[in-house]
């Protein structure tokens, strides 16, 4: 088994258009959630979200690219450029032949579906652009990353709702760990903040109209975000040999299925994934200093997640910190685990624990140290990142300081 390290990170999300800006915002406890701005927003009952602002695709991408890049692909390529530049890796020869890209997304090109349905149904048009299909397909973003960076190894897209990115990164980790690939580009993206995307979520009646307040007794639901998080996972010796800056080590992962309910989370399923990740990384509960929670701000997730953590960690649960950064960047659905991995890297590298903002009232069912409202300086050696999806599919990653 090979050791796997992260040598590059990139992002775009409501908190910033780069890793540095995002980490600054996370450390400041800044909220990126605000009024949504897009066509027909006035017909929505949910009008807030963590929307990416100031991102002009025109100018960044040429006309031909624009006809092929849905917003989720645009985000992915922007984040991938940052991650690969930071890593300093160049994919050529044998390295290119074996390295690939595994990304997560729940919805893929949602706004392309939305725009084109509107055009044929509402506007009564009978013709759509020839590239609608290659633009909206869930693997479009991964494909464009492979094309842009000459990644010729195993590449595909994983779709497990809110756990998509964590499942993708778990898969990429396994590929590097087993020697199948020397390096993998991985992470995920999502862009559902359009009329149809938000309208579909409204139907579930789990969205908040005012704020995402994970673990707070007065929480009233989730708030959607959008963006991408992309990373370079690389075999440790390969990274060392080329003198790469190592951000942290991916120490282990676990995936589990609740096999119970299509939307209600299960404590047992979550606990099995958390315990599984510790076991896979050969870590003990007392080793973990911080958990980036799934922490959606819904009644169901937060209490189930806290109960699962309490089960796995026993008395150690009182010593660890657990925060949900969704309070700041919103829930990026299939891209959320990727953006949240940045909070894990910040904890390990900089010793800064991102807070859970919007925390107003203690909930006895979430009685853990949720790092309320203000970031904290703390040296931690091991962190976990949780993701628990609709459909009962869970993926937890364990990261370690190098």
């Amino acid at each position: 088994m090979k050791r796997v390290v992260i040598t590059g990170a990139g992002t775009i999300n409501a908190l910033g258009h780069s890793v540095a800006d995002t980490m600054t915002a996370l450390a400041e406890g800044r909220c990126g959630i605000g009024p949504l701005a897009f066509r027909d927003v006035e017909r929505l009952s949910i009008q807030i979200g963590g929307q990416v602002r100031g991102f002009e695709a025109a100018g960044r991408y040429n006309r031909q690219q624009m006809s092929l890049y849905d917003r989720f692909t645009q985000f992915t390529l922007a984040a991938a450029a940052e991650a690969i530049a930071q890593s300093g890796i160049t994919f050529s020869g044998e390295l290119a032949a074996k390295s690939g890209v595994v990304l997560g997304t729940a919805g893929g090109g949602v706004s392309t579906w939305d725009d084109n349905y509107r055009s044929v149904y509402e506007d009564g048009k009978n013709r759509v652009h020839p590239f609608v299909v290659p633009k909206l397909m869930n693997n479009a973003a991964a494909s464009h990353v492979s094309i842009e960076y000459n990644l010729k190894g195993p590449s595909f897209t994983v779709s497990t709702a809110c756990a998509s990115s964590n499942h993708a990164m778990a898969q990429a980790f396994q590929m590097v760990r087993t020697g199948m690939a020397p390096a993998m580009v991985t992470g995920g993206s999502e862009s559902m903040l359009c009329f149809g995307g938000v309208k579909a979520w409204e139907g579930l009646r789990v969205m908040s109209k005012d704020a995402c307040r994970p673990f707070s007794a007065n929480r009233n639901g989730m708030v959607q975000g959008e963006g991408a998080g992309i990373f370079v996972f690389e075999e440790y010796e390969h990274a060392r040999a080329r003198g790469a800056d190592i951000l942290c080590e991916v120490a282990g992962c676990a995936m589990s299925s609740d096999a119970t309910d299509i939307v209600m989370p299960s404590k047992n399923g979550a606990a099995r994934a958390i315990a599984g990740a510790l076991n896979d990384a050969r870590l003990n509960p007392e080793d973990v200093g911080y958990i980036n929670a799934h922490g959606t701000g819904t009644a169901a997730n937060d209490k189930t997640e806290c109960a699962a953590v309490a089960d796995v960690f026993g008395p150690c649960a009182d010593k660890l910190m657990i925060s949900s950064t969704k309070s700041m960047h919103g829930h990026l659905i299939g891209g959320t685990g990727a953006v949240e991995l940045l909070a894990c890297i910040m904890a390990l590298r900089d010793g800064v624990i991102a807070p859970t903002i919007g925390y107003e009232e203690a909930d006895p069912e979430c009685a853990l140290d949720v790092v309320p409202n203000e970031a904290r300086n703390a040296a931690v050696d091991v962190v976990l990142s949780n993701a628990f999806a609709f459909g009962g599919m869970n993926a937890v990653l364990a990261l370690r300081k190098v």
Partner: protein
Amino acid sequence: MSVTDKIIEIIAEQAVLETSDVTKESTLEDLGIDSLGLVESIYAIEEEFDITVPFNANEPTNSDFDISSISKIIEVVERLLKEQAG
């Protein structure tokens, strides 16, 4: 059909029961309707009466929609029909 009969019909269908098995005193719990069934029932009520029901599944008891019994649901729907008329 009256508002009461319509609501009982919607709830009965959701609970997979005969309308005669649903009374105004029934609670959703009695009828075996869980949180998903509740959200579907509210959707059916909104569609039937063309109203918007203020309900957030994260704070079911805090919403402006009392779901403690069928008669309470009927009361609220009748109020919403008046408020949202026209």
